[in-house]
């Protein structure tokens, strides 16, 4: 059986996340930081709901009404020059 990739940008598999949770017995946020799931180029655009579902399942931390795992700007990949205020990317 092939592994199930959860976060494709950082190539984190379901097994990686489960193993990290079992080894460190830690919070959803710490699992995310340790595995880098959802922290790749797309900023979690593709896997955010999947990462949330896995982490909720493993840690029992219910998201509730707050959006799980805080959304940080930039919410799209942007160049450093755009972030630095040079709008036309020069």
């Amino acid at each position, binding site marked *: *059986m*092939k592994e199930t990739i959860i976060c494709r940008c950082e190539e984190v598999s379901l097994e990686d996340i489960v193993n990290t949770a079992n080894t460190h017995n830690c919070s959803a946020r710490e699992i995310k930081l340790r595995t880098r799931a959802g922290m790749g180029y797309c900023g979690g655009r593709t896997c955010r*709901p999947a990462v949330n579902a896995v982490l909720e399942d493993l840690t029992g931390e219910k*998201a509730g009404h707050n959006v799980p795992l805080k959304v*940080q700007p930039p*919410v799209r990949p942007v160049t450093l020059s755009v972030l630095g*205020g040079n709008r036309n990317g020069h």
Partner: protein
Amino acid sequence: MLDVVIIGAGPAGLSAAIACRESDLDVLVIDEFPKPGGRLLGQLHQEPTGEWWNGIKETEILLNRANTLNTKIECGVSCHHIEKTETGYLVHTSQELYKTKKLLIATGAAETAAPIPGWTLPGVMSIGAAQVMTNVHRVKVGNKGIVAGVNVLSAAIARELQIAGIDLHSMALPVKNTVTKDHAHPEKVMEGLVRIAHLAPSPFLRFGSKFAQSSKVRDLATKFYPKGGFKMWGMPIHVRKAITQINGTDKVESVTMCDVTPEGDVIPGTEEIINVDFVCIAGGLYPLSELASVIGCPFRYLEELGGHVPVHNEQMETPVEGLYVAGNITGIESAKVARAQGAVAGYAIANEPERLKQAMQAVKKIREAASIQFHPQIKAGRAKIHRAYQEYV
């Protein structure tokens, strides 16, 4: 300083812009896609009345109206951050930094992935990507495909692919895991299937809508679901079979399909290899609300609306001053509802009480008559989110 920036040029954003321009507000619409229209562009389905809903035509109607009113629309521009200031908002985009008094977020919905082994192979795409490639870019996505995920959206798009002459083997469930959960649970999927029954020229599925209310009968139907699936437009729909793995070395070559129990557990020894060159995965939609989250708008988690939704009232106002939301960011519904909600937000921003009242009534009427419904409890969800708003003011 602009009067209002609208993020998203889908049906909600465009109709809001039109409403604002009727009052001559200084409006700017931005959208990161190269063309305006949002998800409307890809839509093509036949209504129960026999009429066709053609998204490209509907977009043209909105754009013509917007152009007549000299509306500024910038495409290919992504908003990546917004900040609140004393007098309004700073909108950070991939091009310019915009200053505006009011802000409308109409960013629509995103697709939830259904991760199954092999889903990162080239040739695997979300069902929405297949829709955009087929109906917007007119690119043939493959020669023979299969759909993993059975729901309103995937059934409608599978039909669109068929109309475009693309061969689909069948639709089946994704294999059960912590992420696919309900999408891999035959009984829960059946519940959704009976809601699309009116789209299907299959006697069983139409019969199905009659027992939608009774979960006992539904569970029986799941149990005795035929091995060959039920056919919708000649294509088998399986709820007792799951795609357990997508196979191939450099690209999709086949999938492995297995029989599953009524709870979605794989029955060993039932593996079957099906040769396909593309796979569409369909895990449902959720409101794309990241920008509302960045600005600190309060949220509610409401399954009835499709996930986390920014708190707002019936006028589409949020508790954050000058911040409005409209369309699928407020809950997953059809394009007609999104378009009507946009008008509400626009008239609320322009402060046009008479038109606002009419637009709010129109939303209710359109919701009542909707032929495509993503969530059955939408009205209950709407009531909850509007109550939540009351708690903030």
